[in-house]
């Protein structure tokens, strides 16, 4: 990925044209819940798109379960809010890290959500205590293959972002 590219994620009603990765999303009971789409590009591809850690997206990734936290746009939660800070601490303290976890950003200063995933048919109960679900209620959803990446757990104990325009964890200085 070039230094000028960003990675974007959106939950949409229909699969969009031109996305770099898409996967069907269903409720735990099997009802359709839309499509998760991702793009790697500098500019925002659709209005709903939010920035995500690039490692969270893999077009060859397996199916899995996600915990998706998406506060409404009018709920402006500062990224430095104590609740968001503490959710990051709880995520670092997790003794059994998930396959991926990233905060979502709309701009440099606000928390726009978080995605946490486990792969395959692993018990989705692991997602029921999502630390970011304490900031805003989370939805647990089934995601088909073709989007979910895998990322190593953040090294810790840093809870700050590496560049205010980057989602946490990112986890490397100067990238």
């Amino acid at each position: 990925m070039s230094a000028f590219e960003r990675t974007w994620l959106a939950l949409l009603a229909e699969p969009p044209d031109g996305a770099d990765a898409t996967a069907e999303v269903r409720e735990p009971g099997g009802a359709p819940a839309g499509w998760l789409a991702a793009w790697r590009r500098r500019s925002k591809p659709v209005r709903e798109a939010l920035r995500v850690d690039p490692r969270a997206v893999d077009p060859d990734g397996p199916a899995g379960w996600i915990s998706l936290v998406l506060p409404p746009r009018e709920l402006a939660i500062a990224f430095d809010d104590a609740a968001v800070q503490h959710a990051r601490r709880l995520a670092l303290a997790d003794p059994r890290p998930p396959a991926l976890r990233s905060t979502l950003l709309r701009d440099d200063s606000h928390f726009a959500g978080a995605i946490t995933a486990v792969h395959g048919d692993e018990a989705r109960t692991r997602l029921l205590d999502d630390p970011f679900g304490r900031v805003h209620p989370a939805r647990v959803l089934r995601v088909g293959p073709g989007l979910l990446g895998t990322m190593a757990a953040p090294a810790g104990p840093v809870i700050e972002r590496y560049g205010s325009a980057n989602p946490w964890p990112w986890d490397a200085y100067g990238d």
Partner: protein
Amino acid sequence: MAVSLLPGDVVPDLALPDHAGNARRLSELVAGDPTVLHFYRGWWCPKEQRYFRGLVALQDEMEVAYTRIVSVSVDPPEVEAAFRAGIGARWTFLSDADRVEQARLGLRETTDTLNDPYVPRVLVLRPDLTIHAAYDGYWFSGRATLEELRHDLRAISREVRPDWSAPTG
């Protein structure tokens, strides 16, 4: 022959499982930040328990200072995970249960033939894994105090952060 671990030397890029069993490399965990590399005997040692209480207090500063801690022992990952959770640590622990890196580094504590642990040692690393400071913790008072760690981390940060002097206008 064991590698030299003195200031100015470069620490080998350790390859070990973390407390959750994931394969990790030291360079990946350091990833551009000044880092405290901490070798400890094991969860059972009262001196380690006391030292960890200090590091846990320090992590509240390190979490906003772009500095890191990595702790290494011969405890298995599941033991490290339980110990880490119990003390409230939020950094990565590496498990050298097979004692492979311990032999390469020459850090076996030869006076403890029961546990065959790491000898307590704290190395403060620059992002390129060069050792800035080394502390031999065989005697508890030989270990780096929290104030010494703050000084070391500040010195490295000053050296490696191009914007250490705040841009002002």
